[in-house]
């Protein structure tokens, strides 16, 4: 049906994806209850059985209940500045997620230190490309290569890598993925791939 919709702009086909998006959103809202209950169940089990680390499970339960009750009781405008929900969001949630995100900076460095070795030709290519892009994208790059003519400076080299070989690789991956998705979709539609419907 959605395939047809793409080609036929006429009503009711043009409405179909809207309906789907709404239905999907509603299903999601119902499904998250399942997830939350599952988390609670496992945490409560931990506390009751006094498994190692049950104290932290108490914290999970408490913070979950805290934000849920506050959020649901604050009504439709729960997100507006000044509400308690917003406070929790800005001062608890945001620092945590931002820091988790920022911690990647450290991991990226240790991963490059540990794993990026010029083991063979492929790995060397990967390293070289990474090197030129990293150095070429920051101002240092142009200082290093300042003695070279305009066109051969590192920043231009980085741009060239990005625009040409990089694009080619991305494109091959993209087309491959698209074909993979189309074929998987087709298998789902034809009912050949039905692992997700286990039990039928």
């Amino acid at each position, binding site marked *: 049906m959605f395939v047809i919709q793409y080609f036929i702009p006429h009503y009711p086909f043009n409405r179909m994806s809207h309906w789907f998006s709404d239905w999907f959103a509603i299903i999601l809202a119902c499904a998250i209850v399942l997830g939350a209950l599952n988390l609670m169940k496992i945490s409560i089990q931990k506390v009751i059985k006094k498994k190692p680390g049950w104290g932290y499970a108490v914290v999970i339960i408490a913070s979950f209940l805290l934000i849920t009750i506050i959020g649901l009781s604050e009504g439709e405008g729960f997100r507006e500045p000044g509400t308690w929900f917003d406070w929790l969001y800005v001062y608890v949630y945001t620092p945590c997620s931002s820091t988790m995100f920022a911690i990647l900076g450290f991991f990226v460095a240790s991963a490059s230190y540990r794993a990026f070795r010029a083991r063979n030709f492929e790995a060397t290519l990967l390293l070289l490309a990474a090197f030129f892009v990293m150095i070429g994208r920051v101002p240092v790059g142009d200082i290093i290569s300042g003695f070279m003519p305009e066109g051969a400076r590192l920043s231009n080299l980085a741009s060239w890598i990005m625009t040409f070989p990089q694009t080619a690789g991305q494109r*091959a991956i993209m087309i491959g993925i698209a074909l993979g998705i189309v074929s998987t979709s087709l298998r789902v539609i034809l009912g050949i791939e039905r692992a997700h419907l286990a039990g039928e």
Partner: protein
Amino acid sequence: MEHFALWLGGFLTLGIFSFLYKDNPWYKLTEAIYVGISAGYFVVVYFWDNFYSKFWVGVFPHKRLNEAGELVAGVEPDYWLIIGGVLGLLMLMRLLPKVGWISRWPLAFIVGATAGLWLINYFASFVMVQIQNTVTPLFGADYNASLFVIVGNIVVAVGTFTGLIYFFFSKEHKGAFGSAARVGIFFLMITFGASFGYTVMSRMSLLIGRIDFLFGDWLGMIR
């Protein structure tokens, strides 16, 4: 309150950073708070954004009046949404062990509809347009491209071509075909390298932002 908020932010930030040293109680505490808060956060957001404003308001619309006291157009209830509500309800049936199997229906619906939707969008944006743009005159439209661009165009063409060959599954990578696939891998590697470089860039920026919070917003050492 503001002082407390800043200290709380600092406490949580350092708590997560302490994981870098090793797993420790401070991190465990922060992690537990984070998991609880984020799970609750999404429950609340899904409830208001999806369930309430899509389903409830859609089926039982507010009577929104404009300044003159007339009904604003476009508030007729959309009864099609009830189907979504029913599917959602079926999902919740999972809580009852006996009729849990019924939740497969909404799942099948989602997977099927997704399959249909992605099929066509992906084909159009990722296959058609990408081919369209690989197929370019190598020497520029009027044979006037610079050497730089010509080499680039050839590289793009060769790279896309050999890269795709690497993704052939039903043919063994041997002989000329195998070498082409190998060249394809080289291109993939360059792509990954460039990706890697950019990721380092990105992650460092985020780290800078966070350190800026610690020393700037919290401790006031940076202006």
